[in-house]
């Protein structure tokens, strides 16, 4: 065997190791979803083929899938990135909301800028809002040891109520006839276009995924982040600033979630309206885990969940199945990815050292 052949084989093997559990989890979830469909009197084949048609069946469908996947890539990246430092950022939802409303403010509040300035400006503003917001749980974790799972969950409520208030108060759309809580529409120059059926936001998300990967595996900062995640004691021993790294990681994670919200505002909703970004941040948890907390794994995972969101209406129309079945399947995927021992047991895949993903550390552990 030549060396290149063997390295190719190694590469294939590690690729298989990376995708076997997620693939199996998705298939198992679909299978159980089918059983639920059967019980509720629907034909699973009809339902799934309608789902497929609605998500990949036409150029329009494909475009919708990409559109739905775009904010999910960001929220998935946000959760996955924090994971590398051993942090479980449940607050992607709140950070995403703040990113969405901040991008809206920059979008409707400023006029007369050319798109090539206005678009990145609003995106950056959204990113910064998300980043600053998640600096709070980062600092609390770094300096007081407050567990980020608790603080980010609580801060999600702060974000929800704060954005609700802003959209119904100072930043409310005051155009005649509007009675709902929402901001005005953003300027045309701040809108992210769809080119040849491909939402540009999706292309941006691919670029950001690459940058996240590069940061984690090609820079000294990434080495610090991963070291803090794997062994904070060794990080301290080797002179790394653990507290600073934790805060910085949370900030970057919040930046990623914030861009996700901004992209949704600038590419889909064109304003901030409470209720429009619901669940995008929480889906990031499913996507990060399904993508094995790797920036490149996040992309197919986001596409899958995006496809389910995109195809669910077609499924409802064509097969008469309630949309919510996709939520059930998505929940089952999360269940099987998180409980990967079940999948391993079913597939007889042996767990290998260092491959297991620890969802969260307890209080006593470090």
């Amino acid at each position, binding site marked *: 065997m030549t060396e290149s052949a063997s390295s190719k084989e190694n590469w294939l093997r590690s690729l298989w190791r990376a995708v076997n559990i997620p693939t199996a989890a998705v298939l198992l979830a679909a299978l159980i979803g089918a059983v639920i469909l059967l019980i509720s009197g629907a034909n699973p084949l009809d339902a799934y083929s309608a789902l497929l048609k609605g998500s990949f069946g036409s150029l329009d469908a494909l475009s919708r899938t990409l559109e739905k996947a775009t904010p999910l890539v960001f929220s998935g990246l946000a959760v996955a990135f924090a994971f590398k430092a051993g942090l479980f950022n449940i607050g992607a939802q709140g950070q995403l909301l703040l990113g969405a409303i901040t991008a809206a403010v920059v979008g409707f509040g400023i006029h007369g800028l050319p798109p090539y300035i206005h678009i990145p400006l609003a995106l950056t503003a959204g990113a910064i809002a998300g980043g600053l917001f998640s600096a709070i749980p980062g600092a609390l974790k770094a300096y007081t040891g407050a567990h980020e799972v608790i603080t980010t969950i609580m801060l999600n409520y702060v974000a929800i109520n704060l954005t609700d208030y802003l959209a119904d108060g100072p930043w409310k759309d005051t155009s005649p006839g509007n009675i709902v809580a929402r901001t005005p529409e953003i300027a045309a120059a701040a809108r992210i276009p769809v080119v040849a059926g491909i939402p540009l936001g999706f292309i941006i998300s691919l670029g950001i995924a690459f940058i996240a990967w590069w940061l984690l*595996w*090609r*820079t*000294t*900062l*990434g*080495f610090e982040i*991963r*070291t803090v995640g*794997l*062994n904070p*004691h*060794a990080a*301290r*021993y*080797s*002179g790394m600033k653990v507290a600073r790294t934790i805060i910085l990681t949370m900030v970057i994670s919040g930046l990623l979630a914030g861009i996700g919200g901004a992209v949704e505002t600038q590419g889909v909703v064109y304003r901030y309206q409470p209720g429009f970004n619901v669940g995008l941040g929480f889906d990031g948890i499913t996507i990060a885990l399904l993508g094995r907390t790797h920036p490149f794994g996040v992309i197919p995972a986001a596409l899958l969940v995006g496809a389910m969101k995109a195809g669910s209406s077609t499924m409802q129309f064509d097969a008469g199945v309630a949309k919510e079945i996709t939520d059930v399947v998505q929940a089952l995927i999360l269940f099987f990815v998180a409980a990967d021992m079940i999948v391993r047991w079913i597939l007889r895949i042996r767990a290998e*050292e*260092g491959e297991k993903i620890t969802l969260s550390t307890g209080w006593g552990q470090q």
Partner: protein
Amino acid sequence: MSETLALEVRNITKRFPGVLANDGVNFTLRKGEIHSLLGENGAGKSTLMNIIYGLYSPDEGEFFIDGQRIEIKNPHDAITRGIGMVHQHFMLVPVFTVAENIILGSEVTRGFTLDMTRAREEIRALSHEYGLEVDPDAVVEDLPVGIQQRVEIVKALYRRANILVLDEPTAVLTPQEAEDLFRIMRHLTERGVSIIFISHKLKEVLEISDRITVMRRGKVVGTTTPAETDESGLAAMMVGREVVLQVEKGPAHPGEPVFAVRDLHVLDERKLEAVRGISFEVRAGEILGIAGVQGNGQTELAEAITGLRRVESGAITVDGAPVPDRDPRFLFERGMGHIPEDRQKHGLVLPYPVADNLALVAYYKPPFANGIQRNDAAIMENAVRLIDEYDIRTPGPLVPAGNLSGGNQQKVIVARELSRQPRFLLANQPTRGLDVGSIEYIHKQMVAARDNGAAVLLISAELDEVMSLADRIAVIFHGKIVAVVEPGQVTKEQLGLMMAGTPAEEVL
């Protein structure tokens, strides 16, 4: 000692992917004997013991207990057959009491409730019978390591074990605690318990064993008795070649003081003063040994002077200039090398490849980084060179450090720290738990660093290590340095007395 066999294993073979961990191993344990199992890390001792305890199932081989052929498929089988094991890392629930830990898994019940009164009585009776004093109501996490180990032994006896496997029991003990353990072991054998004793420490093995079996590369090399062999004989059997047990070193040529601490006070986790006013200086080209029973402030001292723990008061200086509090990088930048006490906690990131671990301290500057970008080529090049230079046995630079044996993990740290050519080296328990081959190697490297002009501070609980390596010995007791002596001026016994708290003027 009778000739009846308590346990016999025949022809045990166990393969792991790529490794033949046990290769046709035969081993017998007589009733009431202490049979030591000796071998380097990775020689197959732990595999054999895990097979006997039912944690692994062998690919081939047979078990006999009291002459009867039996099957051991899981630890439950082993326990029912009277085999008990005390692991190197204790399997105790820290927040439970001694009694709760001991009955865990074989609870005495009265209806649906635990009968703690009866359990406590049984435990008291057991500890009395075997001379293992433990307080059934003490909470385990409050107990010193030596007592925790005793709890493990009582736990095994409580389950009616008459064959005890002690996996490197002394690795975590102070010399005094080890002596206590040996007394207990003799007591146990007098009462008919048979003991398999696993250790790296040749002296101990010679002191305590009835018979000694040496393993190397998965095979039994031979079985001998303390009367028939000595340390160098055993070492040669283990390593397969002659081993220099005495460290070869010339006289020191001390130069300028490089590193000094003055009136240092440091608190421990519980905010109690662990270091209570320590002063010393280490000169270029000398090894200052700090000898002491563990728990006398060495850990806190080492952490304070390497920037890992806050200094309460006092001064730390490098080349006469003060060192800022808690800044390991400041110290590394000024030439510190640090071999930490706990290699797996502080010294290594186990899931990282060996190559990344070799760059763990200097990762942020050239040649390992260009600006913020890592230079993977340089990290690999460094790894390949150090693996060769420091004889690190690893399948390759990209293998996770956690896959290496303890000795080779320590070599990764030693290679990383010494290859940076430190001007000041702190080595804290540098050879704990290692086999003779690795110890010999690491000692040589430390002497070489000294001869290259490094100021070396050695903290060790091993008297032999301090005696043979250090040029000056500072004895630490209860957070203070109670004496500074030269190794030639004192005997081991005198040192031991001072370490135990006898005032220096009474000893010297």
